[in-house]
């Protein structure tokens, strides 16, 4: 049942316990208890809206920054990852396989903001040996949600099928 609930919530976090209970054929209490447990266990880390900021004046820019890092003895990448993720400009941090180490998504009000942040904060971290910054030009899909206009339902020409 856990995976079923998570599938539904990852599609739409606004489903009520009642909705989920109905769809899965369970009681509301069973669902509430299960979600409680998932939150306590830290499986569910939060609920957020998926926003198309470009629709607003306050659009922000974001960039994917590739960091090369010299891992520390014992701690490996943990220490630098913790340092990087502590900035509020940083949206996500991933340790990567392949040609670089940390993938950092950075956001800011303007291109200059982001560039300044990378130069002043990320590039200056001791163990960071190099940075490559890619600015995002357009978002098509975010967290499974398409950000372009929904295609019209092309069905319904024929109603008796």
């Amino acid at each position: 049942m856990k995976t079923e609930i998570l599938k539904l919530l990852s599609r739409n976090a606004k489903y009520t316990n009642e909705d989920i209970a109905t769809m899965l054929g369970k009681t509301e209490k069973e669902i509430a208890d299960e979600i409680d447990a998932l939150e306590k266990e830290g499986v569910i880390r939060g609920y957020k809206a998926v926003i198309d900021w470009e629709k607003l004046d306050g659009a922000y820019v974001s960039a994917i920054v590739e960091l090369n890092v010299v891992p520390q003895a014992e701690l490996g990448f943990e220490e630098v990852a913790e340092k990087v993720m502590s900035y509020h400009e940083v949206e996500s941090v991933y340790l990567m396989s392949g040609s670089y180490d940390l993938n950092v998504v950075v956001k800011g009000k303007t291109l200059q903001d982001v560039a300044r942040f990378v130069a002043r904060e990320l590039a200056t971290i001791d163990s960071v040996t190099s940075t490559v910054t890619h600015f995002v030009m357009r978002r098509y899909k975010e967290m499974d949600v398409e950000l372009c206009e929904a295609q019209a339902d092309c069905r319904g020409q024929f109603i008796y099928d």
Partner: protein
Amino acid sequence: MIDYSKILNPAVTEIKPSGIRKFFDIAATMDDVISLGVGEPDFQTPWQIRKAGINSLERGRTKYSANRGTIELRKEISRYLNRKYGLNYAPETEILVTVGGSEAIDGAIRAIVSPGDEVIIPQPSYVCYEPITVLAGGVPVIIETKAENDFKVTPEELKNAITDKTKLLILPYPCNPTGAVMEKEDIEALADILKNTNIAVISDEIYSELTYGESSHVSPATVKGMRERTITVNGFSKAYSMTGWRLGYACGPQELMKEITKIHQYAIMCAPTTSQYAAVEALKNGDESIENMREEYDRRRRLIVTGFNKLGLTCREPKGAFYAFPCIKSTGLTSEEFCERLLQEKKVAVVPGTAFGKGGEGFVRASYCYSADHIKKALVRIGEFIEELNKE
């Protein structure tokens, strides 16, 4: 000037255009309509199936196939029907690939019915059986299935409908629009009546993959005494979300299939080749896609059925297909009034039960081929509609 009434076939001109058509044309002109009207899946055809179609085009496989369909596809259909339902049909002589289940039904009826023959049709059901029967010169004999019997055909109803002229029985299960399914015992009871008769059966099983809960589909031809008289019709539209590919099939004893194949050969030649290549992929590797879609339909089914019952519109649990068929008698409106007012006042489109036969009076069909969010929105509006009706 030419007098068209002199050229046209009266059997065709007498087929009534549906009054509901007009009603849906109104819906099409309105903004912000939430429709629960359509009867086709909202999913895309699974990518690997589309890809197989594309590959066949790239390789230039764009010629006619054998009349009966490619032998590769017929072999896959045979295997599929065996592993899913325990049916045994020989790919060479007992399977015909058609342009959708529709052509299979048309061909089967035309091959069997001659003028004056009676065809027993349970209703409410899909709308094609009656007109095709009439076009063949046959006489439709309607069984109005009852809500209290879960819209199944009962042995008594069948017995009462049979006369010396009965040639054919249509079994449209899992049923559009009622969601009814026939269990093994239900079919056995009918088989008992049909044995020692010369009555054929067309079993329209287009929704066979979409059954829920305890019910899994029982194919009538697997019931004792039924195979020799049954034409099993199925297709790819509903299970694999392939409505526009127009591909189905008919299976049955070779004595029947030989004749249906003649009609197909002259009227159609062969089903679309691209679709046939895609269908092979669907049968080989499509089980997981079907299961994912079925699970999603099942969640929506619970949502919509619970929703209607909460609004006081009694809705029996539909065990198959993708429609809820709630009873609206408590509103005091006829099905058509209900649908028209719901559309005008709340901009929600559902189909009157009467579109599927007179016996559908007092019911409406609401499809759940829509996202859960869409269904929830529609239910809220229907709730407002019921509340306002109660105040009148």
